[in-house]
């Protein structure tokens, strides 16, 4: 292939790769799952303006530390039609353990168990905590950290200086493009394969 064509192909790929997500989520994301309470849940939630999947692990101290902020975000944006759904990305865990953990940390929103990491891998979540936001039709709108409180492991800012998930949701609610649609989350890795 001549270098001209190589360049042409690269260019085409870039154009088609709208928002940078086409390689990981080429089709609209749509699935039906059973949550830890035994209820059937459609993802993304069709009647909501946006669905936020928050990936967590019960023994990840970083995702646990975010519990109050996750609850605040769920409350603050519920009135704007945003739904928050938790996803426990853990292979050695069960629904009873997830219910117990959710109760202890005061989570009131629906939660699903992602014990085969199928959901994580489908939506491209790689660590806990990580937020992935979809439109009701399954278009990926944001994926990444909740905020930048953790600069690295053990490097915690006194206050976050960027609240990326809130910024994304503010834009979505206002009908604007998400300013930074991908960020890098700091936390505990979600395994690439189930045990």
């Amino acid at each position, binding site marked *: 292939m001549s270098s001209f064509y190589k360049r042409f192909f690269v260019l085409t790929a870039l154009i088609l790769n709208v928002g940078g997500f086409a390689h990981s989520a080429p089709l609209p994301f749509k699935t039906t799952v059973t949550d830890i309470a035994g209820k059937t849940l459609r993802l993304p939630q069709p009647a909501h303006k946006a669905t936020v999947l928050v990936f967590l692990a019960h*023994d*990840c*101290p970083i995702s*646990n*530390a*975010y*519990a*109050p*902020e996750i609850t605040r975000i769920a409350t603050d944006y519920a009135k704007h039609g945003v739904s928050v759904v938790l996803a426990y990305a853990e*292979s*050695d865990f069960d629904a009873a353990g997830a219910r117990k953990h959710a109760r*202890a*940390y*005061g989570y009131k929103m629906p939660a699903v168990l992602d014990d085969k990491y199928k959901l994580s891998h489908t939506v491209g979540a790689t660590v806990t905590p990580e937020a992935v936001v979809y439109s009701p039709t399954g278009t990926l709108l944001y994926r990444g950290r909740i905020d930048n409180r953790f*600069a*690295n*492991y*053990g*490097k*915690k*800012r*006194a206050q976050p*200086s960027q609240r990326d998930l809130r910024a994304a949701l503010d834009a979505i609610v206002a009908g604007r493009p998400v300013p930074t649609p991908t960020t890098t989350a700091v936390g*505990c*890795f979600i*395994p*690439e394969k189930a*045990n």
Partner: protein
Amino acid sequence: MGAFISCVAASCAGQLPQPGFTEVAYTTAADPVKAEPAKAEPMGAEKVVTYNKDIAPIIYQNCSSCHRAGEVAPFTLLSYADAKKRAKQIALVTENRVMPPWKADEGAEKFADAHLLSMDEIARIRQWAATGAPEGNKADLPPAPKFAQGWQNGEPDAVFQPTEAYNLAAEGDDVYRCYVIPTDYTQDRYVSAMEVRPGNRAVVHHVIAYLDTSGKAREKDAADPGPGYTSFGGIGVTPAGSLGGWAPGLVPRLAAAGEGILLPKGSDIVLQVHYHKSGKPETDLTKIGVYFTKGAVDKRIRSMMVLNPLLRIPAGDANYTTSAQRTVRDDITVLSVTPHMHLLGKDMEVSAKLPDGDEKKLVHINDWDFNWQMIYGLKKPMKLPAGSQVNLTARYDNSTDNVLNPTNPPRTVTWGEQTTDEMCIAFLFYTVDSEHLTKGETAVKENGGIGGGALAGVSPALRQMAVRLFDKDGDGKLNEEERQAALDWWRKNGTPAAPNN
């Protein structure tokens, strides 16, 4: 370590027994025999790195003591399944040296409780994770490490705990809570070791046991609702000493025979617990066990500080360097060294220059982390003859690039107890070679406990300058009031042409 510091800031010279006022339980006389880490084989491209053969020995040796049920780490690392699930995480945190939390550049050859991975060990973990974290041959798996349950030195002679549990909120700033526990002993006693048993390891980050004989800690407790009182750096009163502390990974050890820490009669133990918040409401009731010395005590375990209370870190300076010196007056034996800075600290090197010109390195922290306030216990105590000079060099980052900088935009930072202030101290715990309490021979020379007050750790030239400027009563030395005035002036105005700053 804040209380020693509060003493410095409060210029409490003269209120304390001489020499030395602070002792620590972490001595180094008896280090339990640890299995030698597996010797690294040269890594050929064809070599398969497996959990059983290569990784388990590293994890057992360096991770499992905290990563097991009931201990401080958030998950266990005892089995293949534990490690495989987190292979990528383990590879990353060992590569970055975030884990194991060991900040000195020397390891087990020098220090007790060292957890310093070699480059080869890190490379093996990286290769193992990158090749799918294989388990390998069962026969290669070494026996699982055995850990003592409960008290590590057996049943203590006395156990102290607050009268009620403390309730911690789900989130917010870290909390430093001080619990005042009376001892009610009518005679002085000597302590060989103290062991901390954190009540709730999800939130207890580190613990220091101070001693108060003034009754002022009780007053603070009474004035603060709930169990104990809150105080960030020190305990807010001048302590009469310390029984030592605990941070994850440190193992309590009995002092060498004939050595002990003075627990003055009638002391209150002030247990300062540093809490991280976990994301949900938590409750904690931490207790300590005390082991008294058996038999006659010949030497007190004492402390000295090498410090620069005159540091002044300009706003935006990413590489502020400062130093401190102190001359040892007696032949002493150093047991441990404990560097202390706050959130702007980058690195610290502590070494000693002997009268014969020989240099001895005590400790070098090249990646200071406020979260890991370790006591670096020397496996082989270091002899320093009288006249040796202990030198400290420390660097700080007060720019916005330091994500831990608590002040944004940065401001000039000076000495103080708050998280937004800084400190520059190395605590050395030592015994005096000539001291023989059993023969009635007590060490009397001042080796730098707190005898020189707030200016004790600074260079002679700077001290002379302080005397020249602030000796109001003309007696050729600074009393407590004059010292405080000097300290206040310097903190406000910086150090003019300071040879030490």
